[in-house]
């Protein structure tokens, strides 16, 4: 077994079919190298979690092969489980146990020697910032604390590969950022391979070395976030007229600069065929038509644009992401 296959993931033509239903995963191929953070991006129901369940041996594939850490997920399930750690969708914790009791149970079930259990548990609780709440029942933890404990539990037996299924869903931005930092540190300092599913664009963008976009069970795009955005190439300008009556005229003016893009109902958005240098021309053209602008934004191509280009629709929840200024893609903002 090569060094890279020992810490990586290799998937070939993986399929999962459910009775009387469509193929949740329909022949995906992917490779994740050791120490890489692979972002698996897609809307709800795209097949992300089903893929994770198969790669973590909790669901047998209908067809295809997958090797995790060099082991076949069908024929070598116990070896795969010994190699991986997983924090699956929804932090699966017992509200009646404390954080420390969770760590004791997890380390013991993974067969750590008695003297190691306490040390490892304390070390991980400290690392995820939960030492102060270690003896509190988990039922009283916040969503962020639960997710951090979930991550600590997944690391109990020092896995080489970590699966995180939508680890930050429902978390506030502070908890989300703290979790990102820890995941990034695991990959860069400890060489842990991370397979991360998410429906948050900025999560994939900020964290992943490479991104795979899945839709209806198919892998529709794969590459580094930069590569994927470069494929789309053109930035989007989005403007809101001061008067709603001017929206039609604004659409006509902006239409001269490129094809339409998705926008909020009050706004007009187009992909600038000539790139961001056209922004000044756009402003001049609107001014020449005497259309007063309430708000004007230039968006660099985002992973949502990539998703839109590859699937013909916008990724669910993308609007919410755009509403968060600290993580947005906005390069220039002008208000008239």
């Amino acid at each position, binding site marked *: 077994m090569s060094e890279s296959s020992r810490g990586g993931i290799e998937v070939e033509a993986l399929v999962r079919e459910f009775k009387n239903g469509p193929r949740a995963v329909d022949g995906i191929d992917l490779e994740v190298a050791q120490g890489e953070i692979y972002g698996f991006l897609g809307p709800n129901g795209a097949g992300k979690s089903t893929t994770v369940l198969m790669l973590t041996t*909790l669901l047998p594939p209908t067809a295809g092969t997958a090797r995790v850490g060099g082991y076949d997920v069908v024929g070598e399930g116990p070896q795969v489980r010994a190699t991986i750690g997983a924090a699956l969708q929804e932090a699966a914790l017992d509200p009646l146990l404390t954080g420390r009791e969770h760590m004791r*149970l997890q380390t*013991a079930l993974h067969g750590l020697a008695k003297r190691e259990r306490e040390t490892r548990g304390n070390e991980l609780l400290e690392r995820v910032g939960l030492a102060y709440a270690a003896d509190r029942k988990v039922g009283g933890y916040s969503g962020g604390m639960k997710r951090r404990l979930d991550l600590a539990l997944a690391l109990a037996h020092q896995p080489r590969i970590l699966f995180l299924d939508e680890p930050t869903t429902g978390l506030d931005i502070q908890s989300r950022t703290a979790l990102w930092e820890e995941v990034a540190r695991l990959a860069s300092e400890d060489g842990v391979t991370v397979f991360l599913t998410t429906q948050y664009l900025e999560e994939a963008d900020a964290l992943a070395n490479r991104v795979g976009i899945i839709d209806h069970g198919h892998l529709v795009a794969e590459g580094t976030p930069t590569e994927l955005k470069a494929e789309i190439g053109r930035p989007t300008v989005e403007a809101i007229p001061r008067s709603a009556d001017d929206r039609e005229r604004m659409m006509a003016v902006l239409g001269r600069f490129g094809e339409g893009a998705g926008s909020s109902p009050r706004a007009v958005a187009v992909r600038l065929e000539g790139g961001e240098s056209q922004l000044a021309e756009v402003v001049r053209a609107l001014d020449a038509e005497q259309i007063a602008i309430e708000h004007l934004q230039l968006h660099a191509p985002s992973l949502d644009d990539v998703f839109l280009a590859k699937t013909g629709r916008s990724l669910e929840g993308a609007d919410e992401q755009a509403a968060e200024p600290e993580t947005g893609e906005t390069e220039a903002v002008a208000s008239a």
Partner: protein
Amino acid sequence: MSGSLRNQVGQLAHRSVLRTLRQPAQIVPAIVFPMFLLAVNAGGLKDATSLPGFPTDSYLTFILAVPFLQGALFSVMNSGTDLARDIETGFLNRLALTPLRGAALLSGLLAGAVVLGLVQAVVYLSVGLIAGAELAAGAPGALVLVLLSVTITVAFGTIGLFAALRFGSGEAVQGLFPVFFVFLFLSAMTLPLDLLTTDWFHAIASVNPVTYLLEAIRSLLIEGWNVGQLALGFAIALAIGTIGMAAASSALKTRLVRT
């Protein structure tokens, strides 16, 4: 049992006991409800002792066997709902990702039922004796009674585990409670088997295993040492436990499809 299996059972048993002790809502109804019914039955049906052939003058002593079975029914609910919750929350998946063996999971989960069974048996017997019930088998009989009660509680607990694994929902497990209560009512709960004169009722009660569990407990309270009835009671409890455990193991294999 290998060291690793023993360790796994021990860890899960510890969790199960902690969970049980931290949920007063599991313990209190399992103790209060049977005691309430004991008081009602002992007061309302005491004239039954004047029936020819009734085995004791104290209806309280006769009916004291019933709470042990009612308590065991709560064990179906408690062990089943705990496991169903683990399935619903994904905790079972977390356990499945460890080298945990199925046998360890089921045995560990029943540890909570053992604790609950023990507490219930001691409380029921103490309350009964304080209220004036007799214990013909004396102090050693009390130990055997507690042991039998715990065995029945664990046996019924396996049915709860099976239901949870088969249906995967706490509501489905709770739905079993009335079904089991019907079993209790269609047994020699309020009268000895040979005094049940309605043919269909007698026929059902005589094939209902609950009747023989009740009779085993009653033998200790009323007669002293009836080895035959005790052996039959233990055998039925063990048979229920064995069948329940086999069914639960099979359902666990279906539920945990890990490769």
